[in-house]
């Protein structure tokens, strides 16, 4: 699990917008992973199994309180170092835009960024391949528009 912990962090950051909620979600994912380790039957690769459990947890995870916290539209201050600065800024914009996607769209984008094919996305989510393709395209278009709305472009 140690070598995959970056994934837990990424998923938490995609699904929750405050540091507190992200930490809670990460903990919850780890707990669910421990709890369902018995179900890991080595039919699939470890990462596939882990992605599923992590996303299934994130999909239904509840915030600390039910109210939607006011999302700050300000992108956090970044270190002055030039190259890492742009990277961090891009990442901040990316995660901020992702917050506005639907929960399922986040899962699809996540699988896509982890280089899963349409078929694999469909298999893991339990939908048809065609549906996965349509939904991925929609989510990408939406994400792009959201990032542009924030006055940024990749």
């Amino acid at each position, binding site marked *: 699990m*140690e070598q995959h912990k970056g994934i837990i962090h990424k998923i938490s950051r995609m699904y929750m917008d405050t540091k507190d909620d992200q930490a809670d979600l990460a903990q919850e994912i780890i707990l669910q992973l*421990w709890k369902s380790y018995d179900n890991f039957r080595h039919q699939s690769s470890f990462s596939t*199994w882990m992605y599923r459990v992590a996303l*299934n947890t994130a999909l*239904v995870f*509840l915030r600390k309180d039910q109210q939607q916290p006011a999302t700050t539209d300000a992108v956090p201050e970044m270190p002055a170092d030039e190259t890492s600065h742009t990277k961090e800024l*891009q990442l901040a914009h990316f995660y901020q835009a992702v917050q506005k996607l639907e929960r*399922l769209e986040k899962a699809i984008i996540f699988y896509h960024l982890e280089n899963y094919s349409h078929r694999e996305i469909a298999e893991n989510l339990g939908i048809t391949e065609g549906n996965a393709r349509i939904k991925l395209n929609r989510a990408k278009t939406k994400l792009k528009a959201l990032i542009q709305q924030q006055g940024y472009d990749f």
Partner: protein
Amino acid sequence: MTFDNNLHALWNSDKSGGNIDIPHALEKLKSAKMPVDKVRRHLRYEFFMQLAAVIIIGFAPVTLKFNPLLIFPFYLLYFIFVLICGYFFTKLFLFYKNMSNTALTSKDNLYAVYYDIKLSIELYKAFTYCLVPFLVLFIGMIIVNEEKIPVDALFMQGAAISKSQAASVLLVLIGVILGLAVVTELYVNTRYGKYAKQVKRLLDEFREG
């Protein structure tokens, strides 16, 4: 396509996950924010309140100095009442331990979660409704006892009750039961229905098109 490629590059460059520490003691972690856990924890809490009520009701004949004729029927009913409570307690506490399997496909998992929430809610409602006739009878007994209505006369001279009296008793009963049903449905829906709705909304996202 460049947007896509840039996104991939950006994604792979995000190495900020290194600062997560993975606790190795599982006991330290407890699930707090999964809808099913939340519903069950609330329900358990309520069941404890009901358990307390059950125990208090058990002492009613002593505290209210029941007419000896009423004590046997009271405890007969009370015994059945406790059996029914026991059934629901075991269901909630034993049968639903570790039912979840989060390694299913996301859609199947959501259906499982939805089913679990619905089942818990229905179980709770069924339990509440099961208790209504008992409560009505218990309250009836308490009234008979407090008003010093002779118990034998109640059974022997039952025929002496006029039709209109019988009808008004029946109407009051129907009113009470309907009122309780409405309150239960409203309460359960506002308190637990939101979790079911949230999962339902997610499931709708999975639909084709």
